[in-house]
């Protein structure tokens, strides 16, 4: 299979969509570049699948505009969009052989029979399952069905590839292998791809860029690292990884909470804010440490500890707040006892302040 020359960018403007009176997508704006691997990440009910389905032409008619390769597609039926969609359930037709399944889209496009055979073979080769061509879907494992679903979609050389939680029905090991394979396939074909998932590890490892959705609104768009390091709001901060998020306000260059926690900060934010710091940026010391130019020190008491293998997660009670701290674990390290007094060290440049 050759490099896909017809791949296209996707441009979505002010997209809204409702099921009856329930708004599931609100004011979605999005630019996906040609050849990009893009993910929609969000909890269930966030609207990520609905958005994907709107792009492929399913679901209620949206308001606003969706352009694929510059062409407006809203209002076009699914069969005229040339958008490749891989379904969560794979949706292989059980009454057709694998070969028939893969050939289907080409037949619908009235491709010559002689050409179909070759292209189906190529597509099956691409996913490494040519030897299963004459089986029926019921005889295949979940991972094999997934590959066939991919082959069936890419064989028609769609303008973009949409993947709706394609890994969620696979077991953990296969999932890791499969996401690498999907990425390799995408790179080989150079096909603009949108990948919907609720699993941040999947999104982080596979995406060039991603959009985090919640309640039908895009919360933030960026590379995985940008989203993790520079979350723009409380939702993104808490949804990606674990974070200490402390509610407070800024007064006279201090972050102050109702419980009396007081930390000097430099910020142009005013009034109510969240202070965000990741557990791995918090370190604990059994001996007294003093404030320095680079870090703040708080005195606290270990509430509990959780041994996670590579790290030990402590919850430390400081001035009415429970602060999580991850200490990386090495052989022989002793775990701090509950109730022990510790000094919590927070490096200044790891603190992020978000507007409430």
């Amino acid at each position, binding site marked *: 299979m050759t490099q896909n020359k017809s791949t296209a960018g996707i441009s979505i403007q002010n997209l809204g969509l409702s099921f009856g009176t329930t708004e599931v997508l609100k004011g979605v704006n999005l630019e996906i570049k040609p050849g990009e691997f893009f993910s929609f990440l969000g909890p269930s009910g966030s609207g990520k699948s609905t958005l994907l389905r709107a792009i492929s032409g399913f679901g209620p008619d949206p308001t606003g505009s969706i352009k694929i390769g510059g062409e407006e597609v809203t209002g076009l039926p699914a069969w005229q969009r040339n958008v*490749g969609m891989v379904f969560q*359930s794979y*949706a292989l*037709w*059980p*009454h057709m052989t694998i070969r028939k399944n893969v050939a*289907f889209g080409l037949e*619908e496009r009235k491709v010559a029979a002689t050409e179909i055979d070759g292209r189906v073979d190529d597509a099956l080769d691409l996913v490494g399952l040519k030897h299963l061509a004459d089986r029926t879907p019921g005889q295949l494992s979940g991972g094999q069905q997934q590959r066939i679903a991919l082959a069936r979609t890419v064989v028609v050389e769609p303008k973009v590839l949409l993947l709706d939680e394609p890994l969620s029905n696979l077991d953990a090991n296969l999932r890791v292998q499969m996401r690498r394979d999907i990425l390799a396939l995408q790179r080989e074909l150079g096909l603009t791809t949108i990948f919907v998932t609720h699993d941040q590890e999947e999104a982080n490892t596979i995406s060039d860029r991603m959009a985090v959705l919640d309640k039908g609104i895009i919360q933030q768009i960026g590379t995985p690292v940008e989203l993790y390091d520079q979350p723009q709001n409380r939702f993104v901060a808490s949804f990606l990884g674990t974070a200490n998020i402390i509610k407070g306000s800024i007064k006279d260059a201090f972050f102050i909470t109702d419980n009396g926690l007081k930390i000097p900060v430099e910020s142009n934010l005013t009034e109510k804010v969240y202070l965000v710091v990741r557990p791995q940026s918090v370190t604990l010391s059994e001996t007294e440490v003093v404030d320095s130019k680079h870090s703040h020190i708080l005195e606290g008491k270990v509430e509990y500890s959780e041994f996670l293998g590579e790290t030990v997660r402590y919850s430390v009670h400081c001035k009415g707040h429970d602060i999580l701290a991850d200490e990386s674990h090495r052989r022989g390290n002793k775990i701090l006892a509950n109730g022990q007094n510790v000094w919590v060290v927070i490096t200044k440049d790891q603190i992020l302040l978000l507007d409430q």
Partner: protein
Amino acid sequence: MSTNSSSGFLSKANLGPKAIAILIALFLILFLAIPVAKVFIVAFQDPNTGSLTLINFVDFFNTSLFRESFWNSFYVASVSVVLASFIALPLAYFTSRFNFGGTVIIQTLGIVPLIMPPFVGAVAMQLLFGSNGSVNLLLDDYFGFTIPFMEGLNGVIFVQSIHYFPFILINLSAALANIDRSMEESALSLGSNGMRLFRRIVFPLSMPGYVAGASIVFIKVFDDLGTPLLLNVNNMLAPQAYLRISSVGISDPMGYVISVILVIFSLFAMWVAFLAMRGKDYASTQKGGGGLMKRDMKPAEKLGAYALVLFVLAIVLSPHIALALLSFGTIWSYSVLPDAYTLAHYAEVFSSAGDFIKNTLLYAGMAATIDVVIGTAIAYIVWRTKIKGRKILDYLAMSALAVPGVVLGIGYLRTFYQFDVPFSNLPLANFWLIIVIALAIRRLPYAMRACVAALQQVSISLEEASESLGAKKMSTVKRITIPLMTGGILAGFVTSFATAAVELSTTIMLVSSEADAPIAYGIYVFMQSAAGRGPGAALGILAVVIVALGTYVSNRIIQKANQKNAMAPDQQ
């Protein structure tokens, strides 16, 4: 669970279930396997010498009446399937494709005909659709022509297809509802739409459901005795078998030959359905958002759809309407409607037919009890124990599906005529209890499926929890398993009861005196004479009320049980 201790032959935990399994096996062998085997043996036996022979089958096909009956049965069953399909297909299409308000009506349509077996309304249908019936009188008056709805075989086909089309409707609708929406969407996404999409994806995926429904209709019509008998169409297989046995006697081999043919055709139709379904359990292979895409209808489409649905509803309800008219009418002959209305028929039924009602409640109640007891026991033995050969019980009980009522009746007559009821000179075959057993055997597959479904919904961990808290097997069954199965068991009971209450094919062969006869037999007897039609219809209405109540109660029970299960947290 400790598989070791429960599979050991002498383990104490298994003795109880084992003894029960053996008892049930004996019951099924005695009252199902032996009578059917007897029928086969007699069919292949030379009546004079007793040696194995095909001579009876040769005689059968050399007799023109039997050849004609054979082809008539085959023709009627096939055409009924076609006609039933014509009724069911558009209805299934509307419910699965459109957001259609008429869906409720269609679902009701699916139950209404099943409430009343076709023979009950057959005579009344003649008054509505016969050559001098209401419809033809009107047609003749206004348009100058008539339609032979009820002439000969037409009548049987017409009555059967409007009673049995729901089997196709239900199975086909279920198949359509089980098609995952993504099946359709992926085809759309790959460039398919409209008729091509239907032909390549939707139609093949719903085919197994259609074939399953069609094969049920074929078997039901092919085996039915009551409808042709009441319409006075005797040149079909089941009536011939009945008439030979009842007029020539139980030693005449022709009834047995016909029985064998009926069984073979039942098996054949079931085999076709099995082939259609095999490897095509499409519903369970894929999971996702269920059902095909539905769209709203345009006003004109809606009007057409409603018109069609209401027209079908009118036809489907016509046997009930005709029966009701007949039961309230004084004289109804050569007129569109009865001359006047009266309650006299009901009065007569209540004064003289009390025995029929009493017997029906007794027989159907006993048969349904036997069914759920055996059904629950088999379900438990098959799904919860490791007793060797436990599956045989399941197959044995299910095999009753392939045995038409006429065949079972003939088998009972032949097998039990030579034994007397203890302490009397009454042959066992003439004893009323044998009717109860026959009804129980015929309804067992349905009741058992209900019990199995109920048991499968009880998570094994609930039973394991009971055992780990010290309850023995028997105690766990009593305190945990059976209480959790109650909804399903009750539903099984009511279905068995309702259908046993109007069973005719077996009953008609086994009733020896009118005092022992149930309601179905009473309807048959009344309907034989012109004067008896009114009371017969009144009795029919009573039967419909009994069955309708039963169906309603069972639906309520199933709903309640489902609600209860839905409230419990997911326990897979």
